[in-house]
């Protein structure tokens, strides 16, 4: 009788491992961005030293998620719980994906930040990264103590709003600046990519909030 099997504990362990990987992916993203920020450019070693580690963790997250999905279909949970966990994993998996995209964009477009906007890009990135870490935190909280989810959600919500405002002002500043048009396009695209981190974090948080209400009625 699989009712007494240890599969469920396995899933919980696997989910925790997945979240650790997602967190490491974001940490690597921060390291890579800091390298880019200090050097103000991607340079020769950027692909090997910055993009590859982020990609490695993003890829490990994907593999782990696929593995969890696979073991969950071995009937070890109620279909309802399985559906909720799958939803969470699916929405959370967008976070390492977006983190990688930010670093990938730096490399692909060989970005450099104009001096007058450098600090503002850094600030925008930090706000979004805070939201991303909080998103991982909210998912962990959901799997440990659903009651604490609401407080974290509010924090993410504020960070996302803050990011929106910062994005808007930064985009306007870039538009009216004297930098070349092509660079303007790249920078705006980059702003949107950074902003996606807090957008996705808010999506995760919203979903988690709804599911936590369901768990605790």
């Amino acid at each position: 009788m699989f009712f007494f099997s240890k599969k469920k504990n396995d899933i919980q362990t696997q989910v925790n491992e997945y979240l650790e990987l997602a967190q490491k992916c974001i940490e690597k993203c921060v390291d890579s961005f800091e390298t880019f920020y200090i050097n103000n450019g991607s340079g020769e070693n950027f692909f090997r030293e910055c993009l590859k580690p982020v990609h490695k963790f993003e890829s490990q997250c994907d593999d782990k998620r696929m593995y969890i999905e696979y073991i969950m279909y071995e009937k070890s949970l109620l279909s309802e719980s399985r559906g909720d966990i799958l939803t969470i994993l699916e929405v959370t998996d967008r976070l390492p994906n977006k983190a990688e995209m930010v670093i990938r964009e730096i490399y692909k477009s060989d970005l450099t930040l104009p001096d007058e906007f450098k600090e503002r890009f850094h600030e925008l990135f930090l706000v979004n990264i805070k939201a991303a870490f909080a998103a991982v935190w909210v998912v962990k909280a959901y799997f440990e103590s659903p009651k604490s989810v609401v407080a974290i959600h509010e924090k993410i919500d504020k960070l996302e709003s803050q990011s929106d405002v910062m994005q808007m002002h930064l985009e306007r500043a870039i538009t009216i600046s004297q930098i070349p048009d092509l660079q303007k396009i790249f920078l705006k695209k980059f702003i949107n990519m950074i902003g996606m981190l807090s957008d996705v974090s808010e999506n995760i948080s919203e979903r988690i909030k709804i599911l936590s209400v369901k768990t605790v009625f």
Partner: protein
Amino acid sequence: MWVLSSSIIMGWALGGNHAGNIFGPAVTSNVFRFRTAALVTSFFIIVGALLEGRAGLETIGNLTGQTDTQAFICMFSAGLVVVLMTLLKLPISTSQAVIGSVIGAGLMGSGVHWGVFTKVVICWIGTPFAAAFSSLIFYILFSKIIKKINPNIFQMDKIIRWGLFFCCIYGAYALGANNVANTTGVFVKSGVITPFAGLVIGSTSMALGILTFSKRVIKTVGSSIVQLNGYAALVSLFASSFTIHFYAALGVPISTSQAAVGAILGIGFVKGLYLVNHKTIIRIFLAWICSPFIAIIITMSLLFFFQS
């Protein structure tokens, strides 16, 4: 002893048809495999019948006095009603068919003890209300306890699974205690068998019905109840099992389907939702009205035919 064949067939049909109300959700939720669920339920139906089934035997027996031929015709008629209603795709309550048959026999023979009958009818009317009320109370009570525990998704999953496991056992116990009288009650009163033999034969035939006949029914009933959501399904099952057990203690066989629907309505009430459609309510009401009356008519007709 050949007269008992009708009783065994009735027990078999009863077990096969009604077990779905009890352990369908546990099977469709993958808490149990069918075989395990069927074995566990069969075992606890026998335990429930042996420990608490006697009161129901007395109620059926006290409705009217019968000879062994009348008892056979009663069970035969009740069985016929079950088959007929099933063929006509009309809902059926086995308890009401059996008691209807007993009343029919009483009207043709030694008379009916209307006091006992009144008690039975009051219990029938009370069944959906009692189930709805208990599910409402249990829903609120369990929710408060669970809120205090603040379980995460894995713990909640475990609570629901263990709860369904417990309800499966409790429901089987209650079903055995409540419905065994439907199968052999008339033969105990007529002296064909002893009460203990009645409980053993009745519960064993119900267990046989579960093991051989319930797979399809379980899938249907289980899926429709589980769609509520895990927690609501658990509470509705517990509430209906509790109601069935409550009436077993009073010695009145009731319809498990009516208890199940009542319990679901109770949850709908507390959640502000209407969880049972009008069609289901009408079907249950039809069963409530048709089962006993058709049973009375068939029994009286058969007795009239045999006696004349």
